[in-house]
């Protein structure tokens, strides 16, 4: 049987069908969790963020019209907002998160794997820490999540052209050889091109 697209599943979620909501989680829960882990570098926070994303989706379901075949870019956008407004969102779902902490602990193998992923995330986050948040967002969605420029535009609610210009600026900032002379000659900016810069360059090359 052919699986229906998210855009066809969404009306059932909007009408309050828990099974349809569960299907949405089955399709995208793991991707949202991986994204949350890379954004926070904290496995515990990744569980919280994943739960909060889907609880927010449920809470706001009647306000949302899904126009893309996949809900994933939009879910990444929700995740970005949840992370950014972490404290406010946590307050809203305080009781639910209390119940989340009551879940059994993940298996030791999963804990180890998540710790490795978190360590890598921490390293990358350190490399891109100095980027403005808007550029970090497009870079991570492109390089880490593999979204197209169009999908990133949906996730962030900005025009595709803005995605392209932010990616190009992020690439330039991460690679000192591309910086204006004044910045490259400033001792505070004498840093080597980071490994992330190479991937940012690949992301930019998708730009026609």
């Amino acid at each position, binding site marked *: 049987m052919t699986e229906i697209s998210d855009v066809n599943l969404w009306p059932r979620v909007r009408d309050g069908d828990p099974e349809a909501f569960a299907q949405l989680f089955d399709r995208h829960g793991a991707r949202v969790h991986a994204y949350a882990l890379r954004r926070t570098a904290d496995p515990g926070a990744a569980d919280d963020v994943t739960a909060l994303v*889907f609880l927010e989706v449920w809470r706001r379901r009647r306000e949302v019209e899904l126009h893309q075949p996949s809900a994933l870019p939009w879910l990444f956008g929700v995740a970005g907002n949840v992370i950014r407004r972490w404290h406010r969102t946590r307050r809203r779902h305080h009781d639910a998160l209390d119940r989340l902490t009551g879940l059994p602990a*993940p298996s030791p193998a999963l804990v180890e794997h998540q710790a490795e992923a978190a360590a890598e995330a921490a390293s990358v986050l350190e490399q891109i820490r100095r980027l403005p948040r808007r550029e970090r967002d497009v870079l991570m969605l492109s390089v880490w999540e593999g979204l197209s420029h169009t999908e990133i535009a949906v996730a962030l609610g900005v025009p595709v052209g803005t995605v392209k210009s932010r990616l190009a600026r992020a690439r330039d900032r991460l690679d000192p050889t591309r910086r204006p002379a004044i910045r490259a000659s400033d001792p505070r900016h004498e840093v080597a091109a980071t490994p992330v810069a190479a991937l940012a360059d690949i992301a930019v090359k998708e730009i026609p």
Partner: protein
Amino acid sequence: MITPHAMVEPTIDDERHAQLRSYLLREVSPAADVAPVPRGHPHRRPLLVTGLAAVLAAAGLTTAAMFTGGPTGTPAAEAAVAIEHEEGWTTIRLLDVNADPDAVLAELLSAGIDARIHTYDDLYTEARDTGTEILYMTAATDGTVTLAVIIPPDLAPAVAPSSAAAPHPGDATDDTGPVGDVVEPAPGIRIGQSEMSIRDDAGYEVVIVVTD
């Protein structure tokens, strides 16, 4: 090295997925939507008690405001900025990068600091068109609001980036050095990750920048 998307392994296994799925289904079940109010819930408390609590809370907030110097009714824990005046300098610390910009504006105005709210993109356009330099707190990169000062062209740093390479707002990350550093990029202004000090006679304009 970063693992590209195509090589990333899932960060939850089937067991954890099932646990999270069950949890979410419990949370969104109709029963959860109409959970009965438990005994002793505050909604059932007599109005007199609720009113007394409100009076006591208001008194507490006013007392807190007196100690912090913030606007009346603003609890210290929720202040968006902290402001100090010392030896001819005013220091503003941004305490909450996710604060409501209007609340930040109210706090600055009540402390005698003239400011305005601007979006990130509008400020960039203004700076490009007028030749002014915008100096941002680096807190911009993590929140929805940050603070900046506008430096007129004649007082901007001696060697400004060319217009072709003009930095986008938020570039304060590049201008202020590592986290925690405070630099003095123009006369009468010191700026760091989440604080700025402005000499009282400098006359720079403070801007609340909405970064979303």
